[in-house]
């Protein structure tokens, strides 16, 4: 490889790694700064652990920024590190000013790195550095900081200490017993108060840990350690820091990075893998069909063996597919936490008190979706803070608690993920929106907004939401069209509920990009359709005699209640095949269960889901198309959408 080529590739890889690692550290920094904020608000000192971790994070960012030649980031990180050092050594205290300086610095740091990533001009950092300098200068003048109310979580009260010795060896390492894994196990049992390497008899190296375990807690965790050859003894003196030598004060459970157990994977490679798995699924389906066709021509034993092999293959493919899928899925927790940070930031700029409640953060979605969802969520959260949540006086006047609540919620619902952003603010002012919409020509002068759906459409039309004056009065701000666009592009949908008393709630529904799923294949008329298995709770047979008609609606009796029937042949304007008995999919939908009738269910197989992106062919009743092995497109039914639409008729 030529020298230049090597250097270029080399630097590219370095940059890639840099952005990924910087991102991780920035996330950790955000978390700790939030903790600082809580401490400050509650009148406590900053937690030692947070200080140390923040210090290390800024220090690391400084180092990798230097290597990646992003000097603005190196410089800024250097100053932030200095501020944290000052905090750690007690030269500065945690105050509104110092916190602001850290927050402003971190924000700019994020921007600098993002600019470098996008090859945009790097923004100036002088203001943020100056801010930090001011903190240092005023600290110098004041002398050591005044101690605030004590309140750092005490670690020594009510705990028992143990001394743990671990002697590493190749055999133990082969069994995944390394100083790192042992440390992790200890962290799960209690708080590590110190660690150091020691030399034991015969020059053997060992590691000594002192761990504090809460009084009365279960000591059986230590038994598993003992089983693995690790010595655990009671620690005699309950005195000051048992480990001597220079070290970071108050070494506690510092977040541990396991260098060799984590692999960073390019999303593009995962996409490739998914395509390959998709191809495998189709190939296997073809194989299955051929097998069925030739089964009778083979000796019984061979036929049986082939059958078994095919089944194993199916199972293995399923596992493979699940595995690859899992690699791509990430919990929404991270992105929600980011929103928390944003909201606090915004609220701070005004007089408002805002709290973020998060639930369902363990819900996982495809990594690609996560990235796309950042902007829409940002818009929604910003809108809630800026326009939804009222000023404290207004809230009190309305009988609401001073602190506004923004709720971020996520859940898996059938084959979709639901993400909700709600606030208990003043709701959207429909009159003002109507007025503005008329002014902008989005509504005819005589038209009004009659439903939440219409309101949503107006709010999301580019003309409306890009108006600079989308302001307080109207109750919503810029960016709603982005939210709608992203949801559309991802094959999802959005909905809105609002009222002046209970606030506003936006829901974004996204289909899980589980590109492969199990499906039932059914015939309606001459055409085959696929229905995702997850969406169906049961397949039933319907005798013609069992259908009753209630006010224009056909129902059947199902487990003791009346189940409305939707004839897909009618819905799709197709001739049914005239048979008497039909089959139906029972679908549970928000409004209740519903049965969708088909002519017959002809099979079940794994399908690869392809999105239908072109607006000309997009119909709500279908969530995509697939191919069953013969090259023909087969539409995939969106049963919940069908059920919903029918209900509103």
């Amino acid at each position, binding site marked *: 490889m030529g020298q230049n080529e090597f*250097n270029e590739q*080399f630097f590219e*890889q*370095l940059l890639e*790694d*840099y952005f*990924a*690692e910087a991102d991780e550290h920035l996330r950790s920094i955000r978390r700790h700064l939030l903790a600082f904020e809580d401490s400050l608000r509650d009148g406590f000192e900053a937690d030692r652990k947070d200080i140390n971790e923040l210090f*290390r994070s800024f*220090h*690391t960012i*400084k*180092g*990798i920024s*230097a*290597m*990646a*030649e992003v000097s603005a980031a*190196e410089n800024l990180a*250097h100053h932030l590190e*200095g501020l944290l050092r000052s905090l750690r050594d007690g030269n500065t205290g945690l105050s509104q000013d110092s916190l602001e300086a850290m927050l402003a610095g971190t924000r700019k740091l994020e921007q600098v790195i993002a600019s470098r990533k996008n090859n945009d001009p790097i923004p100036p950092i002088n203001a943020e550095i100056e801010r930090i300098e001011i903190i240092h200068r005023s600290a110098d003048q004041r002398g050591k900081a005044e101690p605030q109310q004590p309140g750092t979580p005490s670690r020594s009260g009510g705990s028992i200490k143990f001394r743990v010795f671990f002697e*590493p*060896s*190749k055999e133990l*390492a082969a069994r995944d017993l*390394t*100083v*790192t894994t042992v*440390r992790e196990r200890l962290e799960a049992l209690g708080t590590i108060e110190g*660690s*150091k*390497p020691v*030399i034991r008899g015969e*020059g*053997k*190296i060992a*590691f000594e840990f002192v761990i504090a375990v809460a009084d009365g807690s279960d000591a059986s965790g230590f038994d598993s350690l003992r089983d693995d050859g690790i010595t655990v003894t009671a620690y005699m003196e309950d005195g000051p820091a048992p480990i001597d*030598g*220079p*070290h*970071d004060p108050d*070494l506690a459970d*510092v*977040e*541990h*990075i*396991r*260098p*060799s157990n*984590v692999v*960073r994977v390019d999303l593009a490679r995962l996409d490739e893998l998914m395509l390959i798995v998709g191809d495998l699924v189709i190939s296997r389906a073809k194989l299955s069909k051929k097998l069925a066709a030739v089964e009778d021509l083979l000796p019984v034993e061979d036929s049986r063996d082939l059958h078994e092999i095919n089944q194993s293959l199916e199972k293995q493919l399923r596992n493979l597919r699940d595995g690859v899928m899992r690699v791509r899925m990430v919990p929404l927790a991270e992105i929600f936490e980011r929103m928390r940070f944003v909201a606090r930031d915004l609220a701070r700029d005004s007089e408002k008190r805002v709290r973020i409640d998060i639930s369902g953060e363990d819900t996982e979605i495809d990594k690609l979706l996560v990235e796309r969802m950042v902007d829409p969520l940002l818009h929604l959260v910003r809108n809630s803070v800026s326009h939804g949540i009222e000023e404290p006086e207004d809230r009190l006047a309305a009988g609401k608690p001073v602190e506004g609540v923004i709720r971020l919620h996520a859940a898996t619902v059938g084959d979709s993920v639901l993400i909700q952003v709600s606030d208990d603010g003043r709701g959207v002012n429909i009159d003002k929106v109507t007025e503005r919409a008329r002014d902008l020509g989005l509504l005819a002068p005589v038209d009004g907004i009659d439903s939440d759906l219409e309101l949503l459409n107006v709010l999301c039309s580019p003309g409306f939401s890009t108006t600079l004056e989308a302001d307080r009065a109207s109750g919503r701000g810029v960016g709603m069209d982005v939210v709608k666009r992203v949801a559309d592009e991802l094959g999802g949908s959005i909905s809105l509920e609002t009222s002046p008393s209970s606030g506003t709630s936006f829901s974004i529904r996204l289909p899980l990009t589980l590109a492969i799923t199990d499906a039932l294949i059914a015939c309606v008329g001459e055409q085959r359709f696929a229905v995702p298995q997850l969406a169906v709770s049961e397949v039933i047979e319907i005798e013609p005699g069992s259908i009753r008609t209630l006010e224009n609606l056909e129902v059947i009796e199902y487990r003791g209640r009346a189940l409305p029937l939707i004839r897909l042949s009618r819905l799709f304007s197709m001739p049914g095949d005239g048979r008497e008995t039909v089959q139906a999919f029972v679908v549970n939908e928000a409004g209740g269960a519903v049965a969708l009738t088909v002519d017959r269910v002809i099979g079940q197989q794994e399908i690869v889901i392809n999105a239908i992106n072109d607006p000309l062919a997009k119909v709500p009743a279908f969530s995509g198309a697939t191919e069953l092995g013969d090259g023909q497109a087969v539409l995939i039914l969106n049963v919940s959408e069908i059920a919903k639409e029918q209900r509103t008729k």
Partner: protein
Amino acid sequence: MDRILIADDSPTIRRMMIASLRNLPDIEIEEAGSGLEAVERLALGPVSMLFLDLNMPDIHGIEVIQFVRSHKSFAGIPICVVTTRGDEESRRMALAAGADVYLTKPFSPDQLAEQATKLLSRN
């Protein structure tokens, strides 16, 4: 066969350093992400030289140097400390504790390889 141990808590830096040294003749490269891990590597096999970041989780780089220098079996291992700009204090302490040389970030792959060659040839 010379064994180079790279201790740094940043995977980015580690990957970069490994890529820089890979082409040196007759060497094996080991990596560690913390001070304790670095010591563990020493325990598990002979190490010809050590690149050491100072600010790592669990124990500080200086402690690692002190540990290494105070025990016969490892006392002679060449240690190159890797620091960032503005870390003069730590650098002084590291050299005083027994580090042989230091490199400051940013450094180029060539500088790293040069340093490694120099230190390995001492043996």
